[in-house]
C-alpha cells in the first residue's frame, strides 16, 4: 500500500526553525568577517544553504528504505575513498582530509557521517530490537571503528569523534542491556584514560589544547589564548550583547576564526545572553521535533536514522558550545547550521532531508 506522498507531510515548523537559525548564522558571519580578509563569506554561506536546501528536497524524495538497501555499497565505496584520501589526498593544515573531484575539493569524512547513520540504522533494524549479544555489539564496533580509524589517521580527531554518538544512539535504542552498557562504559573510560596518559597517540597540538583547557591561564599567549579570548568574548557580551558588528573581541580580531568554529562566541558577544539562549532554544526545538518524528516513524529503521542524526547534532552542539564557554577543550568541531563551511552545511541538510523522508513516509504501513 503506497500512500501518495506530498510535501504537505513535510515538517514545515522544523524547516522554519532551521532557516531561522541559518539566517542568524548568515547575519553573524557577515558581522564577524566585516573587517577581515574573509569579507563576503556570508554570501557564500547563503549559496551553500541554498544548495543544501535543494539537496534536502532531493533526499526527501527517495524512499529511505531504498537508501538503506544501497547502504552497504555506499559504505564500501566510502571506505575505499577514505583509503584513497590517505594515499592520494590533498595535504593541508597538517592532514590529508580532502580529495580532488574535478575542480572541487571533497571531504569524504563528512559524508561518512551520513553513511554511518544509515549503516547503523540498517544494522540494528535488521537485528529487530531483540536484546543484543556481545557478538552483535562487536560487529557494530567494527563497522564504525574501521572508518573512524581511517579518519583518525588523516589526522582529524574532531570528525572521527562525531562518529561515536551515532554508535551510542544505535546501541542504546537497538537494545543493549544495563550490564553490557556498564561494562562498555568502564572499558571506554579506561581506554580514553590510557590514551591521554600514554601521550603517544595524541598529536602535540592536541595535547596542548587539552592542557590549556584544564588551565586556560597557564599560557595566555599560546594554546590557552583561544579559550581565553572566547570566554572574554562571551562574558563581555552581558545580557543584551554589544550589538551587531560592535563586539570588540570579534571585530578587534582577538577571537580566533569568529565565523567558523568560534561563531557562537561572536554571536554571544554581540547578542548577549538573550541571543545565545534564543539560539539554544532553537536547537532544543529542532532536536525535540526530530525526536517526535522518530517516534512517529513507520518502523524501527526510520526512527534509528533520525535518532542517529539527533545524536550527531546533540554531540556537535554540546561540544562546540561547550568549547566556547570553557566546558570542553578545543576540538575543531563546527557548530551545525551556524558555522561557516560548505561541507558542514551540506551534511546537515542532507541528513535533514533523510529525516524529512522518514517523516513523510510515516503512514506508509
Amino acid at each position, binding site marked *: 500500500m503506497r500512500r501518495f506522498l506530498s510535501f504537505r507531510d513535510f515538517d514545515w515548523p522544523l524547516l522554519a526553525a532551521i532557516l531561522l537559525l541559518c539566517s542568524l548564522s548568515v547575519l553573524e558571519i557577515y558581522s564577524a568577517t566585516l573587517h577581515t580578509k574573509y569579507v563576503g563569506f556570508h554570501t557564500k554561506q547563503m549559496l551553500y544553504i541554498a544548495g543544501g536546501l535543494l539537496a534536502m528536497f532531493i533526499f526527501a524524495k527517495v524512499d529511505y528504505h531504498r537508501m538503506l538497501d544501497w547502504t552497504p555499497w555506499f559504505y564500501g565505496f566510502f571506505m575505499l575513498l577514505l583509503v584513497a584520501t590517505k594515499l592520494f589526498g590533498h595535504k593541508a593544515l597538517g592532514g590529508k582530509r580532502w580529495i580532488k573531484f574535478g575542480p572541487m575539493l571533497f571531504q569524504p569524512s563528512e559524508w561518512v557521517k551520513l553513511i554511518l547513520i544509515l549503516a547503523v540504522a540498517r544494522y540494528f533494524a535488521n537485528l529487530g530490537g531483540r536484546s543484543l549479544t556481545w557478538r552483535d555489539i562487536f560487529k557494530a564496533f567494527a563497522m564504525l571503528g574501521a572508518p573512524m580509524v581511517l579518519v583518525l589517521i588523516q589526522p582529524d580527531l574532531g570528525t572521527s569523534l562525531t562518529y561515536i554518538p551515532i554508535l551510542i544512539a544505535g546501541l*542504546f535504542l537497538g537494545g543493549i542491556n544495563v550490564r553490557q552498557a556498564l561494562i562498555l562504559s568502564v572499558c571506554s573510560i579506561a581506554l580514553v584514560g590510557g590514551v591521554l596518559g600514554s601521550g603517544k597517540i595524541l598529536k602535540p597540538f592536541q595535547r596542548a589544547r587539552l592542557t590549556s583547557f584544564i588551565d586556560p591561564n597557564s599560557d595566555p599567549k599560546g594554546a590557552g589564548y583561544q579559550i581565553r579570548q572566547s570566554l572574554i*568574548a*562571551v*562574558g563581555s557580551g*552581558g545580557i543584551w550583547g554589544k550589538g551587531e558588528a560592535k563586539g570588540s*573581541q570579534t571585530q578587534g580580531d582577538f577571537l580566533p576564526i569568529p565565523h567558523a568554529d568560534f561563531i557562537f562566541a561572536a554571536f554571544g558577544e554581540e547578542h548577549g545572553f538573550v541571543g545565545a539562549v534564543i539560539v*539554544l532554544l532553537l536547537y532544543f526545538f529542532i532536536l525535540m521535533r526530530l525526536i517526535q518524528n522518530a517516534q512517529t516513524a513507520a*518502523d*524501527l529503521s526510520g526512527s534509528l536514522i533520525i535518532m542517529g542524526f539527533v545524536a550527531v547534532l546533540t554531540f556537535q552542539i554540546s561540544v562546540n558550545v561547550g568549547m566556547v564557554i570553557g566546558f570542553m577543550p578545543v576540538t575543531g568541531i563546527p557548530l551545525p547550521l551556524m558555522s561557516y563551511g560548505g561541507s558542514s552545511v551540506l551534511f546537515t541538510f542532507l541528513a535533514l532531508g533523510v529525516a524529512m523522508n522518514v517523516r513523510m513516509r510515516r503512514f506508509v504501513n
Partner: protein
Amino acid sequence: MDSIKFSRGEKPPSVKLAVVQYCILALMLALAAGLWRLQVLHAEDYRLQAEQNRIRKEPVLAPRGKLFDREGRIIVDNYPSISCFLVREQSKNVDADLPMIASGLHLDVDQLRATLRHYRASPAYQPIPIKQDVTADEDAFIEAHRNELPELETIDEERRLYPRDGFASHIIGYVGEVSEEDLNQSRYAWYNPGDVVGKAGVEETYDKLLRGQDGSRDVIVDSHGREVGYLGVQHATPGTDLKLTIDNDLQKAAELALGDRNGAIVAMDPRNGEILALVSRPSFDPNAFSIRINRTDWNKLITDPDHPLLNKAIQAQLAPGSTFKILMSVAGLQEGIAQTLKVNCTGGWGPYGFFHHCDEHHGAVDIHNAIPFSCDTYYYQLGDRLGIDRIAKYATAFGYGQKTGIDLPGEQAGLMPSAQWKMKTYHNRWYPDETLDVAIGQGAVEATPIQLARIIGGIASGGHLVRPHVVSPDQLPADFRKSLQEDFPGSGEANLPIDPENWQTITAGMYQVTQPGLYHTAGADGLPGIDFGGKTGTAQVMSHEALDKTSKGRVTNPNVWFVGVTPTHNPELVVAVLWQNGGFSYYPARIGARVVAAYIEKQRRIANNLAPSKQSAPTEVGAVWTQPLPPSGKGANADATRLNAGHFYIDHGDILTAKAANLPVSRPGVSGNSTKPLSKGLNAKMGARAVKLDEQARKPVEQAVSSGKANDPRGGQ
C-alpha cells in the same frame, strides 16, 4: 524486496526516546547555565578584561625564497618596500588635504582624486593604496605630518625584485595576490585571501617551498585597536632559496641571440635534462606584477597578438617542419627501410594524384645526404613506405604529442596524428596522401620547442631521453619531489636504444647540416673548430590560398626552427630555436650557433682556467641587466633614486647614488664581452630595433627581421 527485512512496526520503546529527550534537556540547561555564569554573573569582570585586552596575534609575513642560477648567482631577490594607504574611516574630510598629500608624495593631484573616485563605492574600512615603494623623503613627510594627516598609513612589506627587461621572465614567472577565482580552485584551497602567491613559472611550481611559513607577533594595542608595541614574536620561517639549473651567462647569450624576434630558445643538457637557458619572446616585466599590475598594462599584455605571457618554449604548439625528419630517419633506419632507399629528387613527389613539392631538385638522394639536404622527396617516399602507424609509433615513443614533464606550469602536449587519432577526431579514415605531409613535419603534427630539444637531444645521445627541469631535484624535500612528478606528468626519462650504426648515420647527417656543401640547409652556420650539428625546419603557417584570403596582402613568413647539438655525438648541449614567421631556416640556425658558441667559449675558459671575460665595475645583482651608476656624490637624495621606470638599480652594498632625473634612460647593457652591439640592442628595450646578429653576417638578417615582423596578427599560433 530487500527492505522487507527491516522490521516494520517494531519501534524503539518511547521510554528510551523520553530518556534521550531528558538528556538533551539536561545538556541544554547545562549550557544555558554556563552562559548565565559568564554573561550574567561575571559579565562585569569579562567586560573589564575585554577593555584591557591588549594582546592580539598578528601575522609576520615570511620572506619568499630567493632564486639563484646554477653557479649561485642571484636572479630573484627581495627588497623591503613601504606602501602608503589612505584610510577613510576618520570622520575628517580628506578632500581638503589632497593637494598637500600629492605634493608630499610626489603625486599628481588629479590622478589622486581619480584614484579616490575609483574606490568611492568600496567599503569605508578598506584602505586605498595611493603609493607603492615610498621613498625615504616621502616616508619622512608622512611621519612628520602624522597629526595633520592622520589618514595616511604606511605598511612595510617585502617585495620581489626581478631582473630587468624580462630577463628569464618565463622561467621565473611572477607573483601576485591570490584571486577570488583561484581561491575556489582546489590547488589554492589552503591560501587565504590577500596572500601573495606565485602565478607562473618557478614562482608557481615551487610556491610551497618559496613561500615559507608565516610567523606571528603578539601585538599590544590600545582600546581602539591601534598598535602600541609588541610582546613576543614567533618568527616566520623564510621560504627556501632555490638554485635553478639556468646558467646566467648562457641565458644572457640566448636572450641576446633571440633579440626581439617572436619565438623561443631552449638550451638543455641532454645528459640530465637540466635547462641551461630558456627564452620566450616577447617577454614581460615581472616587476609590474609584484603587487598589483595596473589595468592598462595588463590589457596590453593580454591583447598583444604575440602573447608575451605565453611561454613559447613550452606552450607554443607548432608544426615542427623538417626537424621532424630526424625522427623519420630514426624510424626508417630502425625499421631497415632507409638504408636501402635511394631516391631521385626531381622537385617533389605525388603518387596519390596530388603533387607534393620539394624545395630543390636534389637529384640522387640517400639517407646520408637526405638530412643535410632536408630533401622532402626522400622523406615523402620514406614516410609512404613506413606508413602512418609506424611513424606514429616511433614519434609517440620518443615523446611527440606528450608533455615532457618539465617543472613549469602550463606545458602543452603538442600533437602526433595517427590513423586512430583521425578516426576519433574526424570520424574519417586516414589517407596515405596525408602521411606525406606528416613525414616532413607538417599536416597535423605539432610540437613545442622543449619537446624538440628533448627528442633530438635524446636521439643524438643514442636514445637516452631525459625529463627537462629548471630546478635541480636534489635540493627538494623528498615528498615535494614526489608530488612534483605527480603534478607534472610527462614522457619523462626513457631509454630507447638506437642501433649504433643508425645512430652514427643520423648524427653524421646532423653534423653535415652546418657544414659547407651544396644544398646543405645551414651550410654557412657551422662553427669552426667546434663539433656542432643540428637540423633546420621550416613550417608553412597556412596554405597559400588561405594566406591570400586572410593576410590581406601582408607577408606571412613561415615559422622556422633549428635544433642544434654539440658535440654531435652524445651532446652535452642541445639548443632548440623557434622563430615565428622568421622566413628562412638558416636564421634560427645562426641564432642557435650563437648560443652554442657562447656555451663552448665558457667551457673552454673553464677548462683552461681562464678568468671570465673582464667585467666592468660592480654588477649583476638581482637586476641582471643593471649596471650601477658611477658615484656622483649626491648622497642626500640617494634613496629617492632607487626607482627608475619600474626598475631597480642595486649594487654590492654601496649606497645608491645619482639622481633619478639624471639617470640615462637606457644605461643598462651588459658590458663585458666584446660584442658591443648586443647591449645596444637590449637598450632598445625589445623595441623596434633588431639585434645585430653577426657582424660578418652573409645574409641581411635585419632586413628579414623587419619584413618578418610585419605585424602579423596570427603571430601566436
